[in-house]
């Protein structure tokens, strides 16, 4: 019974996050079109080419306002002619104004933001599939507790970077908490690495880590999202 209700709850979350992934797919498509157009013109892509993504990303940010904080593409090293590394990312502030993210991506600089080592870049690169990273403190873009959804961008089968979107952890919690509380017993949603995403118990807090043998007494996995981009588990009293 609890596992059925838990499974339904996770399905609801997957559906909602899936809608955001749908938009990230659109951004990926637009990014791949940029590569294709450059290839047809017989030249390498340039940073300015990706300005073409701005209207699409702005639409996504407006339509998903309240859930998606930023979106865009992050390109693999040396695929853009005029920049060794490149982040083409836009974000919306509280007044829904769209701004482009400015980050130092010059690898010769000491403080270069080396995104190629981040989980949200590495995972889609490694697996060729969509991935959800987080929650983590994103001190580069949102400066908030954040999830990043990412899908690999390909050009003729070659990895060219990732398309992605940021979801603020607080927004996701607002989305899932009613369902957790509605189960009528302690219910905790944890990420693949055991980090608490949301919890109906005041004694189990978001951001803390619950590992297998350290699970609080009475809690056990009752439903799991396996095989997808978010290997999340619902823990509850079974």
């Amino acid at each position, binding site marked *: 019974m609890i596992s059925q209700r838990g499974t339904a709850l996770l399905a609801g979350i997957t559906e909602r996050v899936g809608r955001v992934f749908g938009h990230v797919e659109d951004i990926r498509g637009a990014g791949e079109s940029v590569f294709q157009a450059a290839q047809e013109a017989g030249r390498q892509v340039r940073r300015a080419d990706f300005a073409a993504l701005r209207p699409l990303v702005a639409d996504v940010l407006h339509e998903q306002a309240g859930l998606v904080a930023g979106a865009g593409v992050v390109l693999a090293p040396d695929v853009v002619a005029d920049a060794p590394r490149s982040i083409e990312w836009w974000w919306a502030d509280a007044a829904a104004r769209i701004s482009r993210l400015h980050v130092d991506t010059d690898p010769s600089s000491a403080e270069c933001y080396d995104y190629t080592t981040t989980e949200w870049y590495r995972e889609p690169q490694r697996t060729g599939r969509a991935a959800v990273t987080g929650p983590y403190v994103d*001190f580069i873009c949102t*400066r908030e507790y954040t999830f990043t959804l990412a899908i690999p961008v390909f050009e003729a089968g070659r990895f060219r970077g990732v398309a992605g979107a940021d979801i603020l952890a607080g927004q996701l919690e607002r989305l899932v908490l009613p369902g957790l509380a509605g189960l009528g017993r302690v219910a905790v949603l944890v990420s693949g690495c055991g*980090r608490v995403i949301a919890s109906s118990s005041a004694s189990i807090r978001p951001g803390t880590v619950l590992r297998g043998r350290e699970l609080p007494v009475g809690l056990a996995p009752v439903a799991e999202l396996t095989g997808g981009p978010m290997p999340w588990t619902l823990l509850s009293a079974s």
Partner: protein
Amino acid sequence: MPRSALATVRSRTVFAPLDAGGRAGTVARRLIQAITLGLLLDGECLPAESELASQFGVSPVTLREALAMLRDMGLVETRRGRQGGSFIRAPDQAQAGYLEPQLRLLSVHELQDIGDHRAAVAGAAARLASQRALDGDVHALREHVARLRAAGTLAERRRADTRIHIEIAAAAQSPRLTRAEMDLWSEVGDLVWLPVTGDLVAEVTAEHVALVDAIGRADPDEARQLAEQHVLAETERLIKLRLGMER
């Protein structure tokens, strides 16, 4: 507390202007922060004034005011002509000649207050990080400590050090502590390594190694204590240096 005194406290806190420096000041501070954190690099050309103004959501007049402030501080250089624009002049070769006037601007009490704030933030971040960091977080911290070890200049040490403290706060899973570290480091980060010379370099580097080790061992009390001691020692060095300027 007499009524009038309370009124003064209130007017200084509750009813203080939300943005004392005005919008131009806010924009200038954001740019200074980006420069001191190394997000904007020496020699880098800023976007056109109109683009930058719309990004910050301010008028071109306000943006020009902010750029003028940065020019006065020598952090931005504006060149005319076809290759013109506003260029970042990052104090990369953070030399005593640039830093000492900055230290002189701060009173001993201000230095102590900043140190107390930093100790509170760094101590809490270290304690929480030791409870909440995953192996991957600790691994990333160790990489930044390795960068600090390998650093050859004051500017490199300062950048690696900044990154270590920001990453500890991020590993604590706290955006607020992370932002507090970022703000504190952009405010006084340049000064931290100023009094650190000779054998002290290795000593202060070893303090970071010990701190990250305590976080890796998931020892919250030890981590908090090491972080606090580390910051208080830095504060004491800065206060001594500041007092030395009076002689």
